[in-house]
């Protein structure tokens, strides 16, 4: 019996503490998946937590020896659907956040994509290492510090439009690099 199976059996026996092991084992890949597939305005971490809560509630349904990871991601897909439904209930969601076609494409991917997002995250980190220092700095200002684009433009002594375009080009290059498994040029 694997460590995972042993912990699952403890949870099935009512040991809430044993579920900590399960959360820590799957938190990385699950969050990578929810973050990548959650539509704009959604709460990816909440989807991940609700997935774990639902798995705990339904743990008696799990048959030992079967693919727990696949089952967990099936539950995650249900939770993501619920999140998308919640967002759709928000008045004027599509006007404020995203066109319908785009949200539907994200939902389609969430239904069909295998859970390889964690691997892609590592690939993206690798591609980021290929960026020049000023470009990495700009990404950090945008994504780590959460600076408004106006402030990034002011610091870089460039126009707002130029910063928007530059960030878009950086994302496009990183996408090409990830799609070519880290071989794409991004400098």
């Amino acid at each position, binding site marked *: 019996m694997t460590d995972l199976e042993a912990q699952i059996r403890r949870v099935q026996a009512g040991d*809430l503490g044993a*579920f*900590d092991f399960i*959360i*820590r084992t799957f*938190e*990385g890949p699950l*969050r*990578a998946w929810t*973050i*990548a*597939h*959650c539509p*704009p305005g959604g*709460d*990816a*971490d*909440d989807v991940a*937590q609700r997935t*774990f*809560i639902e798995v705990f*509630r339904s743990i*008696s*349904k799990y048959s030992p020896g079967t693919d727990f990871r696949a089952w967990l991601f099936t539950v995650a897909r249900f939770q993501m659907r619920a999140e998308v439904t*919640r967002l759709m*209930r928000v*008045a*004027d969601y599509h*006007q*404020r*956040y*995203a*066109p*319908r*076609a*785009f949200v539907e*494409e*994200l939902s389609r991917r969430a239904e069909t994509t295998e859970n390889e*997002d964690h691997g*892609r*995250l590592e690939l*993206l*980190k690798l591609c980021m290492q290929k960026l020049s220092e000023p470009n990495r700095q700009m*990404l950090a200002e945008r*994504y*780590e510090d*959460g*600076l*408004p*684009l106006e*402030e990034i433009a002011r610091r870089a002594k460039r126009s*707002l439009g130029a910063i*928007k*375009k530059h*960030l878009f080009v950086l*994302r*496009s290059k*990183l*996408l090409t690099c*990830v799609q070519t498994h880290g071989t794409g040029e991004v400098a």
Partner: protein
Amino acid sequence: MNPERLDELCAMLLEGELNEAHSLELQTILESSPELLKRTADLYEIHRSLGQIHQPHDAAQFAQTTLARMHTDREAFIGTLKYRLREAAPRPLKRRFSLFKIAALAAAMVAFALLIYSLLVFLDVSPPHGVETVASIPTQPATRVATLVRFAHARWEPDVTMTAGQRLETGPLRLSTGEAILLFDSGAIVAVQAPARLRLESRGMIRVDQGRLTVRAAGDAAGFTVRTLSGDAQDLGTEFTVSVQVSGSTEVHVLQGDVAWLATAGATPTRVLHAGEAARFDSVDKVQGHPIVCAAQSIDDFVRQLSASLPPAVPTVYEGFDYPPGDMSIETASGGFGWKYPWRLRKGDELTRETDTSSTFSIAPTSLTFPFQQASTGGALNLPPGRSYRVRELADPIDLGRDAIYYISFRVRRVGAPPTGSKERPYFRLTLRNSTDFWTHSVGVGYPESLHPTVLLSGRDTFAAPIIVEPDNTTFWVLKIVARRNHQDEAYLKVFNAGEAISAFEPTPWSVVTDRFPAEGILNLVVVTGSGPVPHVFDELRIGRTWDSVVSKK
């Protein structure tokens, strides 16, 4: 289609800058090409993953909070059952029962609850999240008693979208994750930490079934009451924390001043706790409570930490009149951000018999300063004696037909008093209008000769404040518009005279609160008007979605 335009729209999508027109344009493009749709979704995934890589994440804390939610999920069910059993029982409990019998009864209740819960888990029935534990308490019809002024990482139950600045009615409020700050109309500030199950009872009372909250109730808010299963904590002009477990066990920690503990509502206090003291009250029978170590976070610390986790509060529209001093051609005045076009004069149907007596764009050499705000650079807009109408179109209009809250702030100064015997009356106005239907819908504020600031609605209703604006001083104005898709709108105005400190949160009370009014217009024009025998100076116009984004506090 133009690939650069797609890139532009895609960048807007990723930056959260799409408006309705952009969204429709992008929708059309994406529907026409599966390849472009795929690329857009790919870029979105990269964008989200970049966020994940850059944002700090504590895996241990994630596991801890998930387990805490699961624990709460289970406890909530048990707590609900216990509460209902308690409500059904006569209160207070008569002494004819022996302690042994009481203990046996309590043990039986808990055992019964656990048995039921185990059965439900076995049958895979979800705990009843939506059960209203205080439904049996008779209440007045819902009235608005507080404002949600700030929140972070907040998740509400049931799932609803809440907005900073949103007015809150009497009734239940449940925060499943995150933190929030409520400002009661009595002036009491309440900081809430999840998981919390609350009920807003009135302007001066909140009921806590579960959760931790800190209250500051200074001045007129004194007497604010936190009602719990174990008793009432009543403020005596102070700051204190109340923590309530699902079992009903309540801790009170006093940071400043005194707090009275009332085992029964309306009764004489059974205990008064002083600053630095804390006690735990396990039931209505334990009227003195057990002393515990005082450990609570002040409101100021709470606000500081919560604010640090929020993105910087920036306006969506700004005009600081950072132009060279002197007269300039109005069509070259295109500074600031959030605007579609430069400033202009009225045109076409916008014109009335009252023509502009000045068409130049006159910039004062220095900015208007207000003591409690950050210093600004550049100049200010002069509105000379006579009649001056200055118009500018917003890039992103104020939409009165959707659920949204808008804040508009500016500084204005009336220079001097009208000469004795003058027939002209001084009047300053800032009005929001529509460019294609200029006269139908409008929301504005006015600074008339009477000096009483006013809110003006579509030329029909005027709401005047009891306060007066100090002439010849720079004053700071904030207009809040609460727009609703399916309900009537409201507007609030606060005018800060020189020397009046700008509050950390929205003011209580506002200078003017309008009645609810029906409005559905799209307001995409800002019209600034100065008329009369004396000049006005106007500066630092901001429009944003939160109080913080428009007040620019030091």
